[in-house]
């Protein structure tokens, strides 16, 4: 108000207001003009790429858009509507000049010079440029898709279902990942003493060890005593089960439980198996730690062996149950822990205790 009085003008024309606004907006350096070239080049690039469209925009809105970005101006505008607006000072800020021009003169009749028109045209071009740069947010593809589905409500419903499935699918995947794998895959039971050390001998033969000799269809077999459980006689209660492997003789009830008896002759030398073994087998030697036992014809006295007494097998891929041979006693030394592991691996119903 004071600046208006000090200038000496009693009336303010729309030209003065617009000139004041343009002077404040453009300034001496004309930064919009400098940026215009860059904007035009970006528009050209976007238009050639097909991602931008030339949209006719109302000039008035283009002018109002910079004012909307300044909240201070809006509050000033509402204040100006209720009270008598002060005349715009020459040194006022850009927003204030714009608000005053809009509130005081709703429909100004603008008279411009040629230079002012050019500047104004540049200003409008810059405003269009800003709008065109912001336009690619809504892509033409999305607009066309929505338009095509509006005509058919059924298709809209199907489209909604599909998008729902797409959004749910990623949520299902983590749920599956959360499931503990330990519950899905049963834990593999492993007996002790299976490992062979670097010296080519099993754990139970690192020093002097005792073995039990027994006969199976004329063959002498030796088993380490440390891996044996008990020796029980085979009785008439030995019960075969149908549907089992041919080397399974049956279940032998004993005071210590039912021993799953292996037809040892069939197990170790199936190519030379003699059917009479079923009649000649007298005992079952149970394996320590598993409910399995080996049927044998007879049991001899235990003997003590040094590790060097045994010719240990290097490659056990073919008959992993054979640990080696004992030349002095002309017998085969069985790897009882390995046999026990093979038996429980073969049993589909085995449940580790």
């Amino acid at each position: 108000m004071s600046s208006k009085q000090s200038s000496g003008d009693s009336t303010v024309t729309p030209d003065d207001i617009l000139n004041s606004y343009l002077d404040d907006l453009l300034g001496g350096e004309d930064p919009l003009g400098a940026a215009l070239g860059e904007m035009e080049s970006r528009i050209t690039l976007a238009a050639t790429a097909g991602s931008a469209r030339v949209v006719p925009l109302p000039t008035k809105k283009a002018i109002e858009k910079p004012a909307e970005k300044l909240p201070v101006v809006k509050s000033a505008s509402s204040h100006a509507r209720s009270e008598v607006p002060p005349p715009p000072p020459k040194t006022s800020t850009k927003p204030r000049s714009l608000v005053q021009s809009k509130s005081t003169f709703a429909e100004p009749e603008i008279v411009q010079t040629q230079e002012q028109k050019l500047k104004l045209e540049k200003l409008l071009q810059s405003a269009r440029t800003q709008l065109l740069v912001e336009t690619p947010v809504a892509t033409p593809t999305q607009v066309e898709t929505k338009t095509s589905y509006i005509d058919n409500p059924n298709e809209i419903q199907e489209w909604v279902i599909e998008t729902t499935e797409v959004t749910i699918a990623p949520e299902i995947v983590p749920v599956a990942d959360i499931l503990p794998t330990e519950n899905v895959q049963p834990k593999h039971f492993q007996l002790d003493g299976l490992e062979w050390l670097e010296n080519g001998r099993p754990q139970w033969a690192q020093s002097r060890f005792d073995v039990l000799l027994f006969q199976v269809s004329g063959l002498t077999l030796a088993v380490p005593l440390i891996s044996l459980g008990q020796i029980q006689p085979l009785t008439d209660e030995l019960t075969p089960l149908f549907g089992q492997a041919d080397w399974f003789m049956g279940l032998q009830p004993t005071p210590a439980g039912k021993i799953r008896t292996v037809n040892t002759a069939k197990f170790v030398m199936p190519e030379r198996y003699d059917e009479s073994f079923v009649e000649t087998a007298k005992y079952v030697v149970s394996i320590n730690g598993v409910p399995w036992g080996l049927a044998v014809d007879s049991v001899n006295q235990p003997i003590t062996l040094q590790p060097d007494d045994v010719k240990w097998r290097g490659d056990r891929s073919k008959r992993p149950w054979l640990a080696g041979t004992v030349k002095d006693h002309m017998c085969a030394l069985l790897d009882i822990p390995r046999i026990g592991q093979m038996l429980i691996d073969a049993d589909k119903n085995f449940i580790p205790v």
Partner: protein
Amino acid sequence: MATDLAKNKSTDDPVLQWVTFRLDGETYGINVMQVQEVLRYSEIAPVPGAPSYVLGIINLRGNVVTVIDTRHRFNLSSGEITDNTRIVIIETDRHVIGILVDSVAEVVYLRQSEIEMAPNVGNEESAKFIQGVCHKNNELLILIDLNKLLTSEEWSELEDV
């Protein structure tokens, strides 16, 4: 108090009744609730084109009942028909069939805790018929799961017999 303890024990460890029969020298048991009746051996009419495990059909009071060759089903050697041979009429989920056995022994009472799981080694499909084993009266009972005696496809085959 003692009654409650007995009741809890009975619910935790129920007593089941099993009909035992002999087959190839072994004793087998089937759930008594699935046994309808036990018949003396009667003539079994063979059915052309029937599966190998089907002996034929019998007329049971006007109803046609298919009789299964149990020995064949259990991969046992075939046996002779004797005076002790019986046809046990059993009822599974949806079907009524007869199984031919060497003889029927008795009904035994077994606690659930007395039944042990049998091993399953080998690749024979018939091993899955064994529900468990139990040592009773100085002999080992092999308990049969009749619902697994035939597959769903085989049950469908029986309907066509």
